[in-house]
């Protein structure tokens, strides 16, 4: 969750017409750029991203660093291919754009897509690299497309000059069956120096379970220590009960991912929730059986449209739990590499009455001695029908909304 301002340098030279990356090099590059923009803005709402093109008539800044994803995606339309890439000028203009960023607290990063041959000599590139390092700008290089005239060597030299404590990376993507974006998702360019991939990246690539588990532990100290603790406990419980719930979870997981993707889009505009919300989330996950997840998701998908505009914090907090719930559910389910459910860990968790009541006691709106809450707990331990649970789930939710 590093606070970062990023400038993406796009190669729109003649070499990008080539079709060795499906559908064309330029299109593959554009897809990768879209993904990166999404991932950056997702990982921290205050991150800004800007885009410039390096070829054509000259280096042109399409959009200065902004956190408005729509603006960035819009500027990618109607780009023309032509000319030769000017790598040195591109990087220098990017550095200048970053220097004039509005929030000086952001770390500076440049991501360069180098698809065509590099005309500059190694010395010049090393000078540029040193200047970037001196001004503490990190550089990520995506080396794809043409590979000739010592291009790889030059780019490696550039990286060595810039690199400070492994904040800069280079990725070589050869032409092949895998799309450029897919290859990039697993690289540190996306995952942000090993902090963990964002939920956006994970949901975009359906099978990226590895990225999600990275996200969880990346969130731990920064966002919600209590949520992190709860998730960690659930992970441990999962491992104990994997076999039993594996089949059921596989079905649910595929449905949830779809719901989770749409939730991510609404999530980007939401402010971060407090620790008490994390507890609420965990309890609500606990209350749900997997088969009632669908109903919970359906409910939550109805609510966000109204909740987004709400000025009343109390209501918006309560309603906000639901899309958070969906995302948290999706995360905790995707956590288990074998697609086992959160139900398994959940039931074990709830079996521990003292743990549950201690968590409930810490929630602001919930009184553990409240009859409806006690009813829920009793029913959890009896492993009652999903329908009944869902009703009781609504009851504590309403309780918290009060």
């Amino acid at each position: 969750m590093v606070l970062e301002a990023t400038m993406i340098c796009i190669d729109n030279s003649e070499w990008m017409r080539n079709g060795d990356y499906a559908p064309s090099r330029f299109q593959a590059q554009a897809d990768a750029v879209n993904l990166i923009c999404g991932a950056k803005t997702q990982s921290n709402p205050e991150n800004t991203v800007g885009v410039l093109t390096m070829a054509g008539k000259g280096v042109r800044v399409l959009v200065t660093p902004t956190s408005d994803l729509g603006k960035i995606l819009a500027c990618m339309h109607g780009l023309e291919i032509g000319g030769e890439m000017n790598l040195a000028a591109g990087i220098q203009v990017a550095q200048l754009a970053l220097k004039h960023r509005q929030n000086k607290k952001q770390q500076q990063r440049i991501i360069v897509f180098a698809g065509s041959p590099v005309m500059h000599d190694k010395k010049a590139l090393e000078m540029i690299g040193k200047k970037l390092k001196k001004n503490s700008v990190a550089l990520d290089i995506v080396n794809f497309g043409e590979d000739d005239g010592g291009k790889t060597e030059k780019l490696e030299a550039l990286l060595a000059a810039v690199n400070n404590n492994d904040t800069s990376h280079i990725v070589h993507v050869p032409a092949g069956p895998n799309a450029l974006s897919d290859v990039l998702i697993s690289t540190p360019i996306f995952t942000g120096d090993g902090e963990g991939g964002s939920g956006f990246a994970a949901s975009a690539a359906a099978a990226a379970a590895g990225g999600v588990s990275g996200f969880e532990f990346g969130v731990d100290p920064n966002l919600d220590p209590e949520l992190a603790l709860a998730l960690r406990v659930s992970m441990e419980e999962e491992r104990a009960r994997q076999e039993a719930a594996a089949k059921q979870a596989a079905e649910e997981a595929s449905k949830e991912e779809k719901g989770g993707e749409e939730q991510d889009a609404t999530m980007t505009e939401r402010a971060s929730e407090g620790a008490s919300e994390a507890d609420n989330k965990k309890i609500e996950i606990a209350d749900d059986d997997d088969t009632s997840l669908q109903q919970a998701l359906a409910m939550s998908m109805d609510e966000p449209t109204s909740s987004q505009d709400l000025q009343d914090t109390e209501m918006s907090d309560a309603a906000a739990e639901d899309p958070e719930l969906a995302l948290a559910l999706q995360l905790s389910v995707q956590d288990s590499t074998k697609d086992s459910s959160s139900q398994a860990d959940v039931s074990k968790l709830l079996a521990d009455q003292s743990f549950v009541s201690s968590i409930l006691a810490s929630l602001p709106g919930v009184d553990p001695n409240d009859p409806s809450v006690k009813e829920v707990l009793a029913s959890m331990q009896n492993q009652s029908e999903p329908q009944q649970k869902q009703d009781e789930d609504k009851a504590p939710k309403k309780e918290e909304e009060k």
Partner: protein
Amino acid sequence: MSAAESATAIQRNQVDLLDFIDWSGVECLNQSSSHSLSNALKQGYREDEGLNLESDADEQLLIYIPFTQVIKLHSIAVMGSEEDGPKTVKLFANREHMGFSNVSDFPPSDTAVLSPDNLKGKPVVLKYVKFQNVRSLTIFIEDNQSGSEITKVQKIALYGSTVETTDMKGLKKIEDH
């Protein structure tokens, strides 16, 4: 001499401004990651001759120090070795977020060229009138004594006095009875 006496008299009222540095905002550009600014500024580290602040890509360093309250800066002591220690040091008062590209955009509040005496610990007295109302200090080390690639600074100490401003962190809520 009366001038010398008054100079030392002023000196007596000056305190080491270490306690008034706002550590959360301290930044240093072009420092080497293993030899960072704390080695030169922090109590204990700066006394240790083995621990230096070193530059990374080239010999220049840009240090930004905000303070927790407004201070008057009287003098600065920069210690280093005779070969790799800093030579030209420019000080800018109350300029935020400077970069190497805009150090030449405006004149420094003061410039000090360090002699071997200074590098051994003798403080450089600054133009006191220029530093009457300092919220933050930017120190630009332009070059070093021998012109080598790396500048090494063993200690940076700031001497001055505080203006009687409220320390916002010291404000405590009055308990309601």
